[in-house]
Every structure is written in C-alpha cells, then in structure tokens.
C-alpha cells in the first residue's frame, strides 16, 4: 500500500451577512454546524455563507458557499473551482467531479414527528396533572419544567414522560435533502494517431438524494444515493514518435486519446458526531459501477472562540489505488452578524 501524506488547509476566510439571519439562529443549519463549519462539500454541512480554500496533494480547491435558512430547512449553493491545473486525475475520493469547475445546489429539510394525539388532549391531560399538584393551569404547560420538578415522584413522572412521548411522536427527528451538481473541465490529451497536444472541455453532472436522522442533537446519520456522469483521462503514456530528420528522439507524455465518459452510482453513509472536545464527520462511499470503495474521516480537533469546530486532521482512502491520505485542516471562526 502506498502511503502519501497530504496537508490540507481549509481556511474559512470571510463570511457574508446571512440572508435570513434571525431565523438561522434557530435552524437545522445550526444543528449541523455544531459538528464543524468547514468541509462545505459534505452533504451534512450546515447553513450560512463562507469562502473556503482547500489545499492539498490531491485536493486543491477554492469554494464559495452561499446559504439561506429557515427554521427547518437549509439551501446552499457552493461554487467551486480547482486550484491546481496540472491535469492530475489522481483523486482523493470517489467523486468524479472533484477536479471540475462546478456549482452544487443542496437543499435539506428536517421533519419533526407529529404528536400522536390532538394538542387539546395533551393540554387537558397536562392541566389535570397540574390540578392534582395544586399548580396554576393558566400559565401554559411547560412539560419539561414539570419533569425536572417532579423527577422524585415516580407516579407523576411516569404520566409526564408519557405525555412528552405523545407530544414528540416518540420518533427520532428525520431530515432529508437532495443535491444537484453541474461542472466543466478542460481536459488535455494527446491525439492517439498524430500525438499532437489537444484539449476538449467536458461537462459532468450529478444528482443525489439523502435521508438522515438525528439520534440525539449532537449525532446524525445520513444515507445518500448519487448518480454521477463525468469524464476521466485515458491512461498516461510516454510516446516517442519516429524522427527521420534528427538523431535525437523527442518524446511526449500524457493521456493518449480523448477523455472517457464515466458513470457512477455512489452509495454513501455519512455520520456526524460531536463530543466534548472534538467531533468527527466520517463517510463511507461505494460505487456499484466499478465496485470501488472510499472512506473519508475528518476529525475536528480545534474550535474557535465561539466553540465552533474549524480545524483538525483528515484521513482518506480509496480502493481505486489503495492509497491512504492523511491531512490536516485549519479554519478561521466567523460570525453571521
């Protein structure tokens, strides 16, 4: 196995006023950002707007993310261009569009489970409990305050927990979303007959849908299905055309022949988990067209003054070339106001 060390710097340089700043303060986007604000290409990244620079051996990109949020949804548009122009097709992950100039639209929405009984029934049940406890019934029903107050009274606690379970539908909070990406790339190659340098601009796209759940606020799972069409260079070779006018032989190296279309059906399992002093955002990817696997494991270790995780280390591996990458990323804290 080849081991390569790449150093990835992800620097969130500036932020922009949030289009829906008030609502963003209470949003799905905030929940997802609690794991880490960098890595804008991750489907489970949160809301807000940022500028991001990614630099590394295999993955050099400049990205601009613009986002708007409502309390239960996030829409982002990520404009991204590769910062390297060496035509290297060696990818750090299974994403065939990783080297493209591209725009990715991502919409996600969270779904709270519906209560299992009408609200008025919940309200009356709560008022009955309040009356039994000689509490006022004209100040609303704050279920969690009652649970905290009577946690040493098993009988009352059981009734309150049952009410709370009915109020929440007794199900985890689900979120779903989709992405659409369109991009272009100027691809250089050598004509397979004349060996003259040539180039063509190729276009690629992908669409994906995903569904996930918050088991608790600080951990989320998501399953994503993606269909992708892109182009990849033919294998690089060194060609030395015969030369009758000189004793010297001139050789050319590069991809021989026009780029080849590549279709992928990628299934990805994403996970985000925030701990006290670090958070992780790993994903496992499988392309069922080529039967290739990829693993990406960002570990957020460093947080900013506002307790947002913005830096850490990144491990990556693909079965494509059995190549392990190790990197670090750092970021700069930003605020919406």
């Amino acid at each position, binding site marked *: 196995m080849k081991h390569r060390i790449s150093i990835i710097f992800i620097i969130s340089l500036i932020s922009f006023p949030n289009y829906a700043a008030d609502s963003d303060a209470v949003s799905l986007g905030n929940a997802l950002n*609690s794991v880490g604000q960098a890595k804008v290409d991750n489907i489970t990244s949160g809301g807000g707007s940022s500028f991001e620079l990614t630099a590394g051996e295999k993955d050099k990109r400049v990205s601009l993310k613009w986002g708007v949020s*409502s309390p239960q949804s996030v829409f982002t548009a990520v404009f991204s261009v590769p910062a390297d122009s060496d035509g290297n097709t060696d990818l750090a992950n299974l994403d065939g569009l990783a080297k493209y100039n591209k725009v990715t639209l991502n919409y996600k929405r*969270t779904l709270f489970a519906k209560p299992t009984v009408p609200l008025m029934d919940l309200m009356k049940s709560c008022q009955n409990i309040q009356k039994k406890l000689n509490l006022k019934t004209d100040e609303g029903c704050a279920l*969690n305050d009652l649970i905290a107050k009577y946690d040493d009274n098993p009988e009352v606690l059981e009734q309150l927990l049952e009410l709370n379970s009915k*109020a929440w539908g007794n199900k985890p909070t689900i979120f779903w979303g989709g992405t659409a990406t369109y991009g272009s790339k100027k691809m250089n190659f050598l004509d397979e007959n004349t060996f003259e340098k040539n180039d063509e601009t190729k276009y690629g796209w992908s669409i994906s849908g995903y569904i996930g759940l*918050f088991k608790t606020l600080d951990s989320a799972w998501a399953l994503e299905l993606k269909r992708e069409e892109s182009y990849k260079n033919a294998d690089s070779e060194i060609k030395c055309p015969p030369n009758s006018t000189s004793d010297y032989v001139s050789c050319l190296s590069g991809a021989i022949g026009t780029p080849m279309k590549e279709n992928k059906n990628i299934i990805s399992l994403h996970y985000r988990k925030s701990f006290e002093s670090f958070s992780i955002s790993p994903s496992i990817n499988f392309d069922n067209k080529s039967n290739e696997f990829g693993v990406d494991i960002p570990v957020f270790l460093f947080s900013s003054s506002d307790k947002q995780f913005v830096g850490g280390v990144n491990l990556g591996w693909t079965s494509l070339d059995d190549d392990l990458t190790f990197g670090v990323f750092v970021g700069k804290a930003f605020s919406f106001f």
Partner: protein
Amino acid sequence: MTTKLIKFEFKSSDIDQFSLIIQKSNDDDFHEEMVSNPQNFSLESNVEYVYMLRVKGNSSNKCELVISGASKARTPVKRKINAGQNSDTYLDLLIA
C-alpha cells in the same frame, strides 16, 4: 367568520431546532406548522387555539417566542432547556 393574522416570531434564540404547531381547540383537523420565522397565520377571530412549541438543543439554551395580533395570548414566551435535558415542550392556549 372573520379572520385575522397572528404573527409568531422567535426574537432571540440559541436553540438549534424547533417545531411550532397550531391546532383549533375544538377541531384538530385544523393543523398549521411554522415553516419560516417570523410567520403569520390566518386564524378565526375570537376562537381558541392551542399551540405546541418543541425545541431541541443543549442544556441552558434559551429562546423567546413573541405572539402578536391575538386577542389573548401569553407573550413573550421565554423558554430554557433544563439542565441535563436536550429538549423542551411547551403547550398553551390563545384566542385569536
């Protein structure tokens, strides 16, 4: 039947996720959910409604809900997630 616009707005909050549902007290077929902030709901004048606020977050996270335009409603509603808990559930009545 006359209706009026009742405005629900979260003024300040560090809560990560919330859900606000409104139902008519005597007719649970009427079911509205807040999808933007602020949001106006068209409710029947002088009719009683019940709403439920559910929030998820971390201990000590706070939020403040302001209801305006109603004939009778408790406002602002200030909620705080209790220590050791990661959610809060609050129900109340209002008259549009």
